[in-house]
């Protein structure tokens, strides 16, 4: 499906240097609506990309636009964009509600509308009860949530979230991920950076892997995995005769390794052609050669992709 340029976030050959230190280099990206996760180790350039997207940083080279709006026009940009940064700091002396309302008023909303939007945002992050307490007295998780509320309060269509799940307890994490999914289903762009790879796996429509300031890979996780030909796909088949299956599949050229599971009730297969392997397996099952209990790819997830491309899992 083709998405019009004014619905995309576009990085056109963007580089950012801090003096002589590289932030990001030659980034070309087109991000469509849905949840896109930026993944990479600390210092890879994820926050730099987000700060560039929101005009908090200016590119040394190249151009960035969000939904057709250049990032040096905050007055237009932030009618459509909300950004929850990693900065765990707030203007002094405000309650949670005042914090959100104040910046809605600065956006240009009238008092009544600002109050309503602030309340709605507080409801979204389950902070209504604590809304009239000073932000300075909030726990880390509450501070994270109030920043998220501030970012979504003006109902943006692009939401950029730098490590939004940091400091949240498991219950709130699950609720927050559900909120992200709901927003994405409503057609929003969500750009999320995260270190928690299984959560990235759970919620992302696509990933952008960043390392040392370069985009290492981008796209749907499975698509990215499929393109990594130098790392054959690993599949675990639980069946009644793993040794027989090993002999059967090993004759195929695309199968590079077949190894019995420790409990001898399964077989690990590494193949360069996962689709071809599944066809082969179907034939074996249809011929009644073996009884298969389950088939699951072992390294077709974010952790594996991350490990193969970047080297270590965090």
């Amino acid at each position: 499906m083709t998405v019009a340029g004014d619905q995309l976030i576009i990085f056109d050959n963007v580089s950012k240097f801090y003096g002589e230190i590289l932030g990001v280099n030659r980034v070309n990206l087109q991000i469509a609506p849905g949840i896109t996760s930026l993944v990479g180790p600390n210092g890879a350039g994820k926050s730099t990309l987000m700060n560039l997207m929101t005009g908090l940083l200016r590119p040394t080279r190249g151009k960035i636009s969000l939904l057709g709006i250049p990032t040096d026009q905050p007055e237009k940009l932030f009618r459509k964009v909300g950004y929850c940064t990693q900065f765990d700091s707030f203007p002094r002396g405000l309650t949670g509600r005042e914090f959100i309302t104040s910046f809605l008023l600065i956006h240009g909303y009238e008092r009544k509308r600002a109050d309503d939007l602030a309340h709605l945002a507080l409801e979204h992050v389950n902070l209504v009860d604590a809304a009239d307490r000073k932000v300075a007295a909030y726990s880390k998780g509450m501070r994270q949530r109030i920043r998220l509320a501030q970012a979504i309060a003006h109902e943006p269509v692009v939401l950029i979230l730098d490590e939004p799940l940091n400091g949240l307890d498991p219950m709130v994490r699950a609720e927050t991920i559900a909120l992200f999914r709901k927003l994405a289903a409503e057609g929003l762009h969500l750009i999320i950076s995260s270190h928690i790879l299984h959560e990235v796996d759970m919620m992302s429509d696509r990933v952008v892997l960043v390392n040392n300031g370069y985009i290492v890979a981008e796209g749907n996780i499975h698509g990215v995995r499929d393109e990594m030909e130098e790392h054959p796909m690993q599949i675990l088949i639980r069946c009644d005769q793993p040794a027989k299956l090993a002999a059967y599949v090993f004759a195929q050229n695309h199968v590079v390794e077949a190894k019995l599971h420790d409990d001898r009730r399964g077989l690990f297969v590494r193949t360069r052609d996962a689709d071809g392997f599944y066809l082969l397996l179907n034939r074996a099952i249809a011929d009644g050669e073996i009884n298969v209990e389950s088939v699951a790819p072992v390294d077709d997830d974010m952790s594996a992709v991350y490990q193969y491309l970047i080297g270590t899992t965090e």
Partner: protein
Amino acid sequence: MNSAIDAIANKNNQSPLPWALWLRQIGAIFRFDLRKNFLGRRAILIYLLAMLPLFPLLVFAFVPANYKNFNNYSLIYSVLYNGLILRTLVFFGCAWIFMNLFRGEIVDRSLHYYFLSAVRREVLVAGKYISGLVTSIVLFTFTTVAAMLLLYLPSFYSQSMRYFTEGAGLTQLLTYAGITILACIGYGAFFVVVGLFVRNPIIPAVLLYGWEWLNFLLPPLLKKISVIHYLNSLVPIPVSEGPFAVIAEPTPAYIAIPSMLGVTLVVLVIAAYRIRHMEIHYGSD
């Protein structure tokens, strides 16, 4: 989404610039910052500074009247105003208030919230500058007026009342208040820019303070590159600057006031340009 703002923006698209939205945003920034200026922790220092000239006058009020001479009061006030109120209180008070408008946000790591709002950064400068201006004018004009009343009223009440109602007192009082306002406007703009360009604004503040104090030694042309020269030109009772002073013609009010306002405008344009191109680098600040 954003229907309220969009409605204003669309309505204003019919005119060349969205003034209604900008004014609303300036109002919001002004109120938000005014609260911080007056009620924040940083405000304590500024209240103390504003009270500073009143303490010696409070002591002076208890000196018996027979040790005082009413005829010297206008000169005494002029010396006090020049030395303590204008050159010290207003100068350092404005430095503190206006430098903190942006530098304080950088130190608190909260400037990005403004930058992430749908507001032109020039509008942000205007809103913050006006909030600083109102804060400084309210505090320092109060000090200017209170100091004068505290000097005059305790010892020679009836004479002082006549001086303020029938004599030159009220005109002088209003002139001093006007000079204070003008000083807040001029110094304020300068310190906003300093706070935007310099990581440690104390150094340029001290350098400017030295320049302003040494103004009496400067040749007439260089005197004009200072704020104090124009303000001194407006003072109703001139104060002798000592035997080493280089005498220069005071600049007439009809030149001094527009010049100050013109330079202020230029300085604010520089501030707006700077903030328009500013990045957020809290780590290096």
